[in-house]
């Protein structure tokens, strides 16, 4: 008789709390439209995996469908790489080619990764866990999943949730940080934009050369950068329009759907409801704040050396974060609010696509350097 009611009798307060967390994620997706394509499947996955007996994960010796998906797509790192092919097919590096200086903001705005990693070691995480938490600052879900899966698979769920949640909250996080670090006159700086077309051969060669150079500098980053650049090569080749469209649409939607629900399924109550999750959520916010600050302060530093008529609007620095194209749009909106008709969108997008490159390269650097330190200290 007891078996009949096992679904009710096995409910714990932790499971109820996870239903609440799943419900909040779904609410954010539906009501606030914060990254709905990811937060909704993650929220529902969190509810599914915490149902009594957890049949979708593993029960009575048989593997559930979400664990099969997890083993196939996350443990093997296939899902984040497929997403990168789709993202690569969506990126137009044209604005960057017109103003290549913007590429350095894609580097400066990775500061949050490293600052957060240092803070994480100070609050007691080991080096691999700290590096995985820092990567939330890449503002790039697939890179966060890729690094966390290698270095701290036990923290994958909170890191992924933090990465995607804060990416969706970029419109709330960035403006106050930008305003705190810039004056009104700095935010009103105009930037000239010269309309010119980049040569097609550059657009085709760029993804190939970027892959090769990144592969020489940090070979371990090749799966990440290679997938991103493969997608971009399909787009720019001009002869694979259907494949490009498939990557940007069908592939992106399908893998995002599976990735979201699988990440949600890794949020079992025992794994997720720990003090570490709270710390990771807090440090994720710190990472995004430091990213924004790093980009803005670097732009202000560069301005010290530029003539008066060539100054950069320091808000552009904040777009070096990889949240594409949201960050670029926010900065344009802020520029327009500060002075009607101030158009800096193309520069902002140039900086924003650089952030895509910067975050993957930074992820590769962390992947390469952490094991080197471990070898050096003899662990």
């Amino acid at each position, binding site marked *: 008789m007891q078996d009949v009611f096992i679904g009710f009798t096995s409910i714990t307060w932790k499971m109820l709390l996870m239903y609440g967390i799943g419900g909040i994620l779904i609410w954010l997706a539906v009501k606030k439209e914060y990254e709905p394509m990811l937060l909704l499947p993650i929220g529902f996955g969190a509810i599914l995996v915490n149902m009594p007996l957890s049949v979708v994960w593993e029960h009575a010796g048989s593997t559930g469908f979400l664990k099969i998906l997890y083993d196939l797509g996350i443990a093997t790192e296939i899902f984040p790489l497929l997403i990168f092919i789709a993202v690569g097919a969506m990126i137009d590096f044209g604005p960057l080619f017109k103003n*290549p200086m913007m590429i350095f903001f894609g580097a400066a705005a990775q500061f949050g990764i*490293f*600052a957060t990693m240092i803070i994480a070691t100070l609050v007691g995480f080991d080096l691999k866990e700290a590096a995985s938490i820092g990567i939330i600052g890449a503002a790039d879900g697939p890179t966060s999943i890729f690094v966390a899966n290698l270095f701290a698979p036990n923290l994958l769920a909170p890191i992924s949730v933090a990465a995607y949640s804060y990416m969706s909250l970029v419109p709330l996080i960035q403006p106050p940080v930008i305003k705190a670090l810039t004056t009104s006159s700095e935010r009103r700086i105009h930037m000239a934009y010269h309309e010119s077309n*980049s040569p097609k051969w*550059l657009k085709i060669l*760029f993804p190939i050369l970027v892959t090769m150079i990144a592969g020489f500098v940090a070979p371990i980053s090749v799966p990440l950068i290679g997938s991103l650049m493969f997608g971009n090569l399909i787009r720019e080749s001009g002869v694979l329009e259907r494949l490009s469209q498939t990557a940007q649409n069908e592939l992106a939607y399908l893998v995002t759907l599976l990735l979201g629900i699988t990440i949600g399924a890794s949020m079992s109550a025992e794994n997720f409801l720990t003090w570490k999750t709270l710390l990771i959520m807090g440090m994720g916010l710190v990472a995004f704040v430091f990213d924004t600050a790093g980009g803005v302060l670097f732009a202000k530093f560069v301005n010290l050396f530029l003539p008066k008529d060539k100054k950069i609007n320091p808000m552009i620095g904040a777009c070096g974060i990889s949240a594409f194209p949201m960050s670029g749009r926010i900065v344009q909106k802020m520029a327009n609010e500060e002075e009607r008709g101030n158009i800096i969108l193309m520069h902002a997008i140039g900086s924003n696509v650089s952030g895509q490159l910067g975050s993957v*390269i930074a992820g590769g650097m962390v992947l*390469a350097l952490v094991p080197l330190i471990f070898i050096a*200290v003899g*662990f």
Partner: protein
Amino acid sequence: MEGIIEYFKSMGERAADGSLIHPFGITIQALGITAGGLIGVFATLGIFFLMIRVANKISKKAE
């Protein structure tokens, strides 16, 4: 290079009970990764910058 490696080794030394001999050892290692990582990111993107500049110049000359 040897000196740097020795330095990091000393930072990772642990006592018999597993505690770090240097309490901030891991943080100092993280600082090392930060320095290396930021230099690496700037250098790599710097190469891409040069690549784009050269390509733009070649294309302008060709026009």
